[in-house]
């Protein structure tokens, strides 16, 4: 039975008809369909493309050598890439690892000992220790010390009101005496100014710098001449 004559209203879907003509028509209408295929290529290779799209992609691949090569390479990568997961490091590698781990302490438990060991074996531990040491040193040098309060001796026996009164009067007298003694001695001994506990760090630093500068100037000053020494014998 002879084949029926083709319907002139329906275009024949013949893959091998005229690829140049198809390309020319696409170039003047929708453009190159290879971009669209590249978007779908991975899903096509994985088999996750819906059947309609897959048949269209298959039709394009029948004509386009470049896309066909790309899809074939993608398919071959599915075999090639997992094969790269394991690479033999050589025959002596396991022995080298066993030697390297022979003297390592085994941290089998996650207790405090393991935590301490991990903390102490971090690369940054030296830097952190140096930082903490420097911070502690600076705090010890520059931070004001707490005021020393006179220690009250522990009373062995409870005292009555009169005894407490006498003790209070004695303490007041002692404090007055020591204050007057300090006032009288200050011009003689020129005591070094003691920074108070409430003085700020800047005040302490500036007074310390001034004292150092004075001492330095005194040391660097030229010796007094003979006439000066005669006029001011106390000043060498």
């Amino acid at each position: 039975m002879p084949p029926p004559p083709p319907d002139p209203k329906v275009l024949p879907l013949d893959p091998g008809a005229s690829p140049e003509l198809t390309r020319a028509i696409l170039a003047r209408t929708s453009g190159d369909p290879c971009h669209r295929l590249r978007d779908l290529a991975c899903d096509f290779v994985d088999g996750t493309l819906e059947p309609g799209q897959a048949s269209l992609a298959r039709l394009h691949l029948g004509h386009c050598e470049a896309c066909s090569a790309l899809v074939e390479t993608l398919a071959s990568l599915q075999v090639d890439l997992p094969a790269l997961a394991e690479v033999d490091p050589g025959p002596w590698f396991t022995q080298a690892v066993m030697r390297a781990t022979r003297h390592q302490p085994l941290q089998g438990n996650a207790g405090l000992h393991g935590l301490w060991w991990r903390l102490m074996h971090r690369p940054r531990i030296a830097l952190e220790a140096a930082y903490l040491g420097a911070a502690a040193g600076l705090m010890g040098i520059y931070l004001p010390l707490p005021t020393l309060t006179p220690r009250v001796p522990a009373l062995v026996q409870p005292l009555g009101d009169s005894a407490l009164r006498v003790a209070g009067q004695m303490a007041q007298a002692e404090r007055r005496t020591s204050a007057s003694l300090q006032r009288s001695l200050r011009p003689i001994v020129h005591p070094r100014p003691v920074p108070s506990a409430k003085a700020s760090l800047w005040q302490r630093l500036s007074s310390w710098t001034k004292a150092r500068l004075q001492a330095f100037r005194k040391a660097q000053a030229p010796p007094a001449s003979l006439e000066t020494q005669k006029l001011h014998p106390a000043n060498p």
Partner: protein
Amino acid sequence: MELTQLLNLVRCGDELAWEAFVRSFQGRVFGLAYHYTTQAEDARDLTQDVFVRIYQNLALVPDEAGCLPWIIRITRNICIDHLRRRKARPPLWDLPADELFDLRSTDRNPEEVHLETVRKTMVHRALQELTDLNREIILLKEIQGLGLEEIAGILDVPVGTVKSRSNRARLELAQKLVAVGMGA
């Protein structure tokens, strides 16, 4: 022997169990380190470091399914640290990348082995031309076979990014192989 049982023996100090553990994972760790560093000698040193670190942190090794992603994460961290150090202080001279894919001896036809070796080497070189993120996604997803969520956790990127980047990276790799005439 199951991995959980093996790990319990290792934690008890059984050296044979530790050797079995090393032999089970050394190929994967070395392969990953080699893909990161491209130098076999560096990769061997880094792989040793990885196992020493695992040995020091045996209490933290997850059992069963979480073990391989954990090891891969440690390997990646050590390799990235190494690459940063190498970038800061580059070696005096650059050794050519070792062709280590021919180290494995097999009983197959030598021609087949040679073709496979050439192909693996070309794929490895093409991988080095990808961007860092694309290469890592290929390494972790296609080569090591990790899941999208695990990769997103390791790389600290959204799962959607991993998915879209994965297809793009595969396509880029295939295009590079076709360009050098290594298409299938």
